[in-house]
């Protein structure tokens, strides 16, 4: 006897615990197996690119905080680099080091969130690893508050440096964090990194071949997990990255476990970068003194500034018409473009794997929809 079956279409999201914001996947299931998937987004579209055209160069910094709200610092950094390229200026060394330190701290915080929610989606009840991740992230956010008065929407960097030097009590607080965090990280690794359930759930699931990843412009940890050591911090060093040493963790077959593993390793490398920066940083100005509050670039000039954000290549393409605000500001957001491979990653896998794979790609809707 044959059982007549029919595919079932389900909307995962926009309100679903595991869609990282207001993201919707229209999925057709055959039993539990995904046969067709279509990402639908735009629920968080705020028109940042249009808004940027109506604000002056410094004001746009506040808009970038709200793109990838899990890593505001790196958004600021990418934007400020683009503006600096446009104006052909370079921040003073201390400013560069401060940017590097904060960007790496932000990378740690962002990866902790990514890993934490990835594990939450794997079904750790009530999110025990998530809480451990947040415990450490909280310390970083505290440092940010000390530095710039806000925890998430930092607006710390400005074209030409950072808005102000770190307060005197920042450095001891940073040292405290650097002492406490490796222990917490080791605890997290002991809890979950090689857990057998995690292994059977994630290894070999949703592999992403390297050639497809490159063709789909996938970047960041997702690309590195597929086996290519491509990191803009190495390839095109910006700020102080040419003065520090670090390794680029690389996965082998780009499955969920590799993506998770790459992030966990990057946290360690970021920690080392912060340490090196602290050892190297020297007193001096943090912001170019002669930049006016309202910046202007030469008409017709354009610049594409990009960084290795925690989620991949974050680029700002700025075009100037000589006015006080960018004529066009295109944001190349890694989260959106990493979603190009959604269909390849999800089709053929089960519902449970689908959720975990989405978590391992680690998208952020603020950045997808902009």
């Amino acid at each position: 006897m044959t059982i007549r079956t029919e595919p079932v279409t389900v909307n995962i999201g926009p309100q679903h615990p595991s869609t990282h914001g207001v993201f919707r996947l229209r999925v057709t299931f055959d039993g539990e197996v995904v046969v067709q998937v279509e990402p639908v987004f735009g629920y968080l579209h705020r028109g940042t690119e249009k808004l940027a055209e109506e604000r002056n160069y410094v004001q746009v910094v506040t808009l970038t905080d709200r793109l990838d709200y899990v890593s505001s610092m790196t958004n600021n950094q990418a934007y400020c680099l683009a503006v600096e390229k446009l104006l052909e200026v370079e921040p003073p060394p201390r400013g560069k080091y401060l940017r590097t330190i904060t960007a790496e701290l932000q990378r740690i915080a962002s990866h902790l969130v990514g890993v934490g929610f990835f594990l939450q989606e794997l079904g750790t009840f009530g999110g025990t690893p998530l809480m451990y991740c947040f415990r450490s992230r909280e310390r970083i956010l505290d440092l940010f508050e000390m530095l710039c008065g806000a925890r998430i929407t930092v607006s710390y960097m400005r074209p030409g440096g950072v808005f102000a030097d770190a307060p005197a009590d920042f450095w001891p607080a940073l040292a405290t964090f650097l002492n406490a965090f490796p222990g917490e990280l080791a605890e997290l690794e002991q809890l979950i990194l090689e857990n057998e359930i995690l292994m059977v759930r994630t290894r070999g699931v949703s592999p992403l071949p390297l050639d497809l990843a490159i063709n789909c412009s996938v970047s960041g940890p997702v690309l590195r997990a597929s086996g290519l050591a491509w990191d803009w911090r190495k390839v095109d060093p910006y700020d102080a990255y040419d003065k520090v040493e670090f390794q680029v963790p690389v996965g082998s077959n780009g499955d969920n476990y590799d993506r998770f593993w790459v992030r966990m390793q990057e946290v360690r490398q970021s920690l080392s970068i912060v340490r090196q920066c602290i050892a190297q940083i020297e007193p001096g100005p943090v912001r170019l003194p002669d930049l006016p509050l309202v910046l202007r670039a030469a008409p017709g000039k354009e610049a594409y500034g990009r960084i290795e954000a925690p989620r991949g290549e974050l680029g700002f393409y700025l075009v100037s018409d000589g006015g006080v605000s960018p004529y066009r500001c295109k944001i190349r957001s890694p989260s959106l473009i990493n979603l190009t491979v959604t269909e390849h990653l999800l089709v053929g896998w089960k519902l449970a794997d689908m959720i975990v794979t989405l978590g391992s790609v680690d998208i952020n809707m603020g950045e997808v929809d902009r």
Partner: protein
Amino acid sequence: MALKSLGGEEVARRLEAALPGVVERWESSVIWVNPGQIREACLFLRDDPHLDFQFLSSLCAVDWVEHFEVVYHLTSLRKQQSAVVKARVYGRQSPSLPSVYQVWRGADFQEREAWDLMGVRFEGHPNMKRIMLWEGFEGHPLRKDFLQPGANLPHG
């Protein structure tokens, strides 16, 4: 180890040798390509062993009022070099140019976004519909002549 920004001249020379007439003009770091042949040009840029631009970093459209400019930021992961390719599309009613989806699948969402927000159609894209806004939205908000309904923002 550093990224090399390829000069417009070098790219233009190679491109012109392979596909005569495709390059409209070039500058120090930018080349303008005939929009009708953008797909062939991109295919060449991707597959030429000296250029090897396998990675499309970014694709966007800029509204210069009298024309639209579609900008491709390309990166070669193997040779660690980058280049900027542009194509000018004229006409405000229905500007269109061939899609590069078949060359780089990474262009998928970015082309859809350019259509959605800027109104530049990419012919040959398998799923050319709105991406951020809903179907039925009137106009393309990133165009310079788009007026936000009820715009009364102080900076508007």
